[in-house]
């Protein structure tokens, strides 16, 4: 069972703040540290700052991120630590508010003596990333929206981009033989970063997009929108609706007679919160598309079980992203024999990109053992194979999943990455 809050949830409410935060972040980066070496000590614990919103509206989501990092720290410390040093997590609270991110990041860099930053999400990344990169601090994040073709050498995002997900959704509809599709996305910034790529890919694949209405956030009722979709007679509906709207939307969806329409959802529709809001009956008609992962990792079940030992919070797949981020940074430190960010950041591609002679590892312990034996490794995480493009975002195959309430998803098909090229 998973509970994965929508990464998009926060975004739509803060688009104005993001614009401000970009300016703040850029300004702060310009004024920030240029020492080039923020991670200082070579003894004592390896400090990892975990930036999230530990107060405010996103506490649950932020706790899930922190819990993932805690499981990683536990695994690493059980394996003897990084170069013999224990991992020490330092939660850094920015409330997931970009205005608070700037001082929080600056304080973390100045005071907390961190060797790695794990955190930043859809809401606060625009403020935080420029400062971290300017300070040459390695960061690993869980950010859904595209942030443009910007290469940030010190930053790795563990989550695939939203627009690529849209291509995979359209391809899945095409592969299933649907000719007439409806594209139904809510108006949050996150959802809207997926919808255009779905429509564009659908056109390229020769699919007829018969309806593509918005689902307005906070609208009092959706019957008219739903009626418009039904009247367009789609064979399948490609969609994402926030959990807060999903209960109302799908109850009206069902009462208006659309209950049997096949639904193809984004990765966010795998969220248990969403599935509960949607209801078990409609969940049977839903196939969710996500980067191939979880079930592909032999370490996944161990990760789930470790979660329960480290924290009393319910398991959440979202924590897997920071888990992977911390583990891959730790392995890079082991490989580099240094916890200095300006040194070990160059080793992250070495342990994530596949190559001849490389041995795929799924856990920190496996990786550390092989590194000590002088072997080359390829870390494949609990969230996926983690093969990064030049913008440090994971790319690769996608998969289709079905999921029932309170159960883990079942993979029912694969969408190979090469099928998405050119869409």
């Amino acid at each position, binding site marked *: 069972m998973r509970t994965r809050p929508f990464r998009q949830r926060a975004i739509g409410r803060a688009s104005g703040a993001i614009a401000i935060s970009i300016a703040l972040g850029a300004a702060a980066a310009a004024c920030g540290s240029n020492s080039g070496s923020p991670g200082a000590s070579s003894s004592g614990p390896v400090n990892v700052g975990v930036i999230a919103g530990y107060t405010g509206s996103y506490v649950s989501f932020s706790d899930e991120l922190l819990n993932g990092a805690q499981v990683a720290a536990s695994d690493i410390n059980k394996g003897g630590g990084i170069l013999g040093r224990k991992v020490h997590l330092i939660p850094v609270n920015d409330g997931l508010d970009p205005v608070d991110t700037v001082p929080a990041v600056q304080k973390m860099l100045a005071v907390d003596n961190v060797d790695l930053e794990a955190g930043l999400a859809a809401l606060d990344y625009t403020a935080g990333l420029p400062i971290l990169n300017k300070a040459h601090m390695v960061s690993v994040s869980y950010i859904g929206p595209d942030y443009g073709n910007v290469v940030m050498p010190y930053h790795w995002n563990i989550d695939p981009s939203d627009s690529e997900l849209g291509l995979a959704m359209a391809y899945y509809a095409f592969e299933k033989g649907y000719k007439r599709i409806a594209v139904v996305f809510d108006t949050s910034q996150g959802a809207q970063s997926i919808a255009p790529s779905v429509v564009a890919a659908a056109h390229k694949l020769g699919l007829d997009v018969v309806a593509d209405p918005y689902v307005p956030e906070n609208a009092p009722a959706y019957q*008219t929108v739903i009626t418009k979709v039904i009247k367009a007679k789609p064979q399948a509906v490609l969609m994402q609706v926030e*959990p*807060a709207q999903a209960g109302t939307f799908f109850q009206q969806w069902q009462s208006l007679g659309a209950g049997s329409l096949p639904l193809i959802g984004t990765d966010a529709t795998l969220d248990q919160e969403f599935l509960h809001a949607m209801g078990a009956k409609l969940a049977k008609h839903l196939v969710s598309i996500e980067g191939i992962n979880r079930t592909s990792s032999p370490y996944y079940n161990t990760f789930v079980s470790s979660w329960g030992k480290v924290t009393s919070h319910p398991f959440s797949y979202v924590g897997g992203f920071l888990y992977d981020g911390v583990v891959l940074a730790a392995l890079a430190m082991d490989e580099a024999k240094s916890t200095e960010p300006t040194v070990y950041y160059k080793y992250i591609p070495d342990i994530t990109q596949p190559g001849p002679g490389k041995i795929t590892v799924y856990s920190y312990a496996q990786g550390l053992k092989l590194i000590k034996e002088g072997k080359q490794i390829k870390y494949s995480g609990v969230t996926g194979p983690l093969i990064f493009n030049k913008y440090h975002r994971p790319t690769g195959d996608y998969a289709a999943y079905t999921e029932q309430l309170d159960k883990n998803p079942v993979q029912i098909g694969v969408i190979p990455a090469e099928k998405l090229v050119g869409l």
Partner: protein
Amino acid sequence: MGLWLATAVYGLVFGAILAIAALGFNLQFGVTNYANFAYGPMLTVAAFMAYVLNVAPLHLEFWLSEVLAVIATAIFSLLIGNYLFTPFFRRRPQLLFGLTVTFSTAIILDSVLVGIWGSYVREMKAPSGALDVHVLGALRLTNLDISSGILAILVFAVTALFLGRTKMGKSMRAMSDNEALAKVCGLRTARITSITWLITGAMAGVAGLADQLYLHSFDPTMGDQLFYLLVAAVIFGGIGSPVGAIVGALVIGLVSQLSVLVVGEAYSTVSIFVVLVLLILARPNGIIRPRTRSVFTTA
């Protein structure tokens, strides 16, 4: 034509739920003369009360939970009104201070709800058969939709009888018209105010529960989302006018749905406020001319 008619009915169903909330808000405003921004979170309080009683952790029977939740919300409203708002208003009767304290209370209530229950969406299942559908041409209504309409009519009727036929109702109207005169005439205004908090709290409870079932799922922002529409309904209908609140809410329900057909879903919420602004330009006191001493009106 079938689609337009069906859409209008969907709008009226939502408008009926909104009208219960708007009526309570307007009644409270009429007697106390303060716009209570905490009225939105009060709807959410009712929803969480019912959730605690019916779903987790208490698992009481559905209807018992609903009744207890309404009573609890009414008492909560009375406590906040009597021990927070009224003492504050007595010391600082100015409009701005009133808005400040009710607005602050709304934020506090929202934060407490998030603090206790988190920001997650929760389900509140309607009783069995509530979602059974009746099909009339293009119109598809659930039993819940029909019940919401009937509930609203009942609330309107009881409120009208209470205000028109009972001594307390007449006293509330008198106080709403002129508090100073009501005092001179020997009416116990403090007691009337307390009962107003109690009754309007109960109405917030009923509206919150109706909205919760209508939405099928809810989170701590539920009441806030309805609040801005109910304020619009009250302004639309005429501040201080119970009939105006009902009419305003129904119009807003209609506009919210029909506008999807006219201007598209992206502008449906915006269109409510465009219509509101145009109406205020044409009729500054709303559709129904109020008889209140409201500080917002020029009547």
